[in-house]
């Protein structure tokens, strides 16, 4: 897989955009700015996916991350009040000694990862010499006037092998999502909602009624 020409140019543009947006995500003072930079990083990575000829995953990335997860993040940021951060009164990083230690750790990690990937890639090239021709499967794809057939084929092939080779993991993933839905609903309930669903430990309830007499009324209503 060697990109060339305009593909190489776009590769570098989107790679730099992804890395800078990632850095700004970590460094931004305001959490909303962090979320927006994370969105641009995710979109750039989706563009890299397109350059690696996996258009379906790029679409899924944009729909799920930018459309779903990031909207959720923004809602939560607006639910919990982060005024102190925006005013600039509080420190956004941990204590300097912790930050130094973790940065040293990260530098070691980046050195190790880059060394490992370059050495491993050299070994891979020794195993399979460079200048690979395009695979027979790719050449056999029909070309339409707009060039869209290849994109359609990618979706078709991913879907086909998803259900052919990974149908059990697919079902497990759906159960996982169901658990996530139920779990987040349970976690985000208020005490009042828990009391009216009669789902509180009696000892805890006794203490809480002392603090807030309204809860006793709710409890009687549920009975």
């Amino acid at each position, binding site marked *: 897989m060697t990109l060339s020409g305009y593909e190489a140019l776009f590769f570098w543009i989107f790679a730099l955009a992804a*890395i800078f947006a990632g850095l700004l995500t970590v460094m931004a003072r305001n959490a909303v700015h962090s979320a927006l930079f994370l969105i641009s990083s995710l979109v750039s990575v989706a563009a890299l996916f397109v350059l690696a000829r996996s258009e379906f995953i790029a679409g899924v990335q944009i729909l799920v991350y930018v459309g779903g997860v990031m909207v959720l993040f923004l809602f939560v940021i607006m639910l919990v009040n982060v005024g102190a951060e925006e005013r600039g009164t509080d420190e956004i990083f941990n204590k300097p000694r912790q930050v130094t230690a973790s940065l040293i750790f990260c530098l070691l990690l980046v050195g190790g990862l880059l060394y490992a990937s370059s050495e491993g890639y050299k070994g891979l090239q020794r195993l399979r010499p460079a200048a690979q021709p395009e695979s027979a499967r790719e050449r056999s794809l029909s070309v339409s006037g707009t060039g869209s057939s290849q994109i359609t084929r990618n979706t078709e092939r991913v879907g086909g092998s998803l259900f052919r080779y990974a149908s059990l993991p697919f079902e497990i993933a759906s159960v996982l999502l169901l658990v996530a839905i139920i779990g987040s609903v349970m976690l985000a309930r208020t005490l009042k909602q828990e009391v009216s669903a009669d789902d509180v430990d009696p000892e805890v309830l006794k203490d809480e009624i002392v603090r807030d007499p309204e809860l006793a009324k709710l409890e009687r209503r549920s009975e």
Partner: protein
Amino acid sequence: MMLNSFSPALLLFFQEVVETSRWEQMKISAMNPDLSKFLVIGALLFIIGVAGVLTRRNIIVIFMSIELILNAANLNFIAFSRYLEVTGNVNALAGQIFTVFVIVVAAAEAAIGLGIVIALYRNKETIWVDEIDLLKW
């Protein structure tokens, strides 16, 4: 004509340049990004995410850094999938399928994690991770 008579010497000169100059080699490999460049980008994104998790105090930004880490892993999966596809491997799409599952798990993790954040904020009125120290003594 004259160029022709010189051409063996010129050829030797260019060959020597290509063989010796490391800078030229780097330029050529930068003009043609391959699997290793994707891996480098993935590694850098991963490290940025790890640094975010370790240094930030805001729990929501920590969750965003975790998303960044998962995304770097996805980039590696996609790059290797493409590499195997070009080299004619049998099941080259396994990487793309695994990416779908990683995205599913990331979405579930974000939903549960943000539910925990809301419950935590309701009880402790803070989102700074160094103030959430109930298990510390």
